[in-house]
């Protein structure tokens, strides 16, 4: 596909119909159309409501613990011997990842809309935990759809969601991962349209979800900008974040999109390598199609059937990607690269040892890219990486991959 002419601003999207360039849109069953239009209306109102913003700011500060620190990783910087490495530490948020930023915003919308029941999909369980958390806090019953494979490999998060009062529905359709969970959540929603709010976990789905999830996550990038100016009196040279659906990445990237001197890199799950089907690199190896309400890059076969991706990280295990990322790739504003399972595992261990931080497997992919790039950059350069989740949930997966037996009872 030919590269479109570079726009004056990369931040103008989406348009009224929810498009970022040719991506995005509203490809949903008619039953859901009135709901999506209603959500859009409520979100537009909320955006212009200072009270809504004040509520989010209050909860971000007092419930989540924002702003999250921008941490200079001195030991890792020294170890790699190149650019200065900063981490935006969203893994220190309440619930252990960036997912809570979005959930707080959406639960306030659900309340405004008078909905009484929350449904969510989850892959790694980070979004499920965050959704169950806000549902508990605001007194909503919550049903979380989770692929059966993911239920098995993310048992600590399954238990956390149960403690928080959520009902977990294991989804057996397909390979039992994130896309299947999303299908099942959509089926629930289309059945329970009257009372149910669908709390989508990533910056994908039909308009206005990609926009509103991005807006709620943009607190990451806004804080980073301020904190960077405070620490270094300048913007960073490079941003790096992992991309599954792409919510943590768009949250960090968006406020910087028009800062042309800031290089931006998104890291996809390369799984076992891009030659076969065992990866989740939608942008590097997929092509545009329509799934889950939006047009975006998808892993698919020649007949337009969606493929099951693979990643060691359940949170990156999605064959699509948020539509704004597709747009940012096509315009060339953001570079997207794959990282293999093995590289992510090595980076995971490196961070434990050099900085005393156990990262989730998702940001371990971003970290592996940092490990590749930092040594090639001068010591006067600065990289900011989004450390979007903590790795407690992943220790069993990592143990298994490293051949270490653990007592799980």
């Amino acid at each position: 596909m030919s590269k479109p002419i570079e726009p004056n601003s990369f931040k103008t999207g989406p348009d009224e119909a929810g498009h970022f360039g040719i991506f995005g849109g509203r490809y949903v069953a008619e039953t859901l159309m009135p709901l999506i239009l209603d959500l859009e209306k409520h979100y537009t109102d909320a955006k212009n409501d200072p009270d809504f913003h004040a509520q989010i700011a209050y909860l971000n500060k007092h419930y989540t613990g924002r702003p999250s620190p921008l941490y200079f990783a001195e030991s890792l910087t020294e170890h790699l011997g190149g650019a200065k490495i900063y981490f935006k530490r969203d893994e220190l948020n309440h619930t252990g990842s960036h997912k809570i930023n979005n959930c707080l915003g959406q639960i306030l919308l659900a309340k405004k809309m008078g909905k009484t029941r929350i449904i969510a999909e989850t892959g790694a369980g980070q979004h499920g935990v965050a959704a169950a958390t806000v549902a508990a806090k605001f007194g909503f019953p919550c049903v979380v759809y989770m692929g059966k494979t993911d239920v098995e490999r993310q048992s600590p998060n399954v238990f956390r969601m149960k403690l928080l009062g959520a009902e977990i529905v294991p989804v057996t359709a397909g390979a039992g991962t994130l896309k299947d969970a999303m299908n099942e959540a959509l089926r629930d929603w289309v059945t329970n349209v009257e009372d149910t709010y669908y709390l989508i976990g990533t910056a994908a789905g039909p308009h206005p979800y990609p926009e509103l999830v991005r807006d709620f996550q943009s607190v990451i990038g806004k804080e980073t900008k301020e904190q960077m100016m405070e620490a270094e009196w300048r913007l960073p040279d490079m941003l790096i974040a992992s991309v599954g659906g792409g919510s943590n990445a768009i949250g960090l990237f968006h406020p910087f999109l028009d800062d042309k001197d800031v290089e931006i890199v998104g890291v996809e799950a390369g799984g076992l390598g891009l030659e076969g089907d065992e990866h989740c690199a939608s942008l590097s190896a997929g092509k545009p199609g329509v799934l889950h309400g939006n047009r975006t890059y998808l892993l698919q076969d020649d007949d337009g059937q969606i493929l099951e991706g693979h990643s060691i990280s359940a949170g990156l295990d999605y064959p699509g990607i948020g539509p704004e990322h597709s747009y940012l790739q096509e315009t060339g504003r953001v570079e997207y690269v794959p990282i293999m399972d093995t590289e992510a595992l090595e980076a995971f261990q490196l961070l434990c040892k050099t900085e005393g931080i156990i990262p989730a497997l998702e940001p371990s992919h971003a970290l592996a890219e940092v490990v590749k790039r930092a040594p090639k950059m001068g010591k006067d350069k600065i990289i900011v990486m989004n450390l979007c989740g903590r790795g407690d949930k992943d220790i069993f997966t990592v143990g298994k991959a490293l051949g270490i037996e653990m007592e799980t009872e």
Partner: protein
Amino acid sequence: MKTRIDTRFEQLKIEGRPGLVTFVMAGDPNLEVSQEILNGLPVAGADLIEIGMPFSDPMADGPSIQLAGQRALKGGQTLTKTLAMVAEFRKLNNETPIILMGYYNPIYIYGNEKFLKDANAAGVDGLIIVDLPPEADDELCIPAMDYNINFIRLATPTTDAERLPKVLENTSGFLYYVSITGITGAAAPDPDRVGKAIAAIKAKTDIPVAVGFGVRTAEQAADLGKGADGVVVGSALVSVILDNLDSDGNPKAGTARAVHALVEDLASGVRSVKH
């Protein structure tokens, strides 16, 4: 130009009864038996035929049709083969309307213009694309007019008076009223509520209205058919196929016959209604 769908509903109006619209999934349980099922539907009493185009992620479908799609895909069904099935059917039958139903992505990947051209050549009369709402009419609905292919829209219980004109705007052939909020094959619809909803739609349009989702028996078909121009049955037919699979998942002898038997029964239901 009139399509076979327009002509069929005119005939049904003269007969003074609702039509039976049968849904089967292309390639389920395999290509050969699927073709046999399709070819025998008109004789069994189907007035219009919907053929499902299998998709890996059928977000609006219940378990029966999900499984049917999976069986078809496992057997190697593709959009190209589905169009070939229609062309094969047309060698035997040039009157019964064929409507392809499914999701947008396989068509998008096939190429919209190429698809419309090939579908028209194969003898397809209409399309129902679940995830293409009126807001996306430019993509396929409007181009389909140039190929004399009807774009059939779904109206649902959430389609209120404000939304209905938008849904009707570029709909042709007929309007498919989804009797419940939910997925295919779910709860049985309430005939009184459905009757009122269809009457409200008919006050706004002259195009025929067919009703579907959750219809399983001849009695239900007759009940719902009183106020509608057509009754759609899908999951119940697809379930017959599931019931006729052996332990290896292969269809037993007589699978097509079993599907046709249910169609005959349903046809007696709609034929008992006098408008």
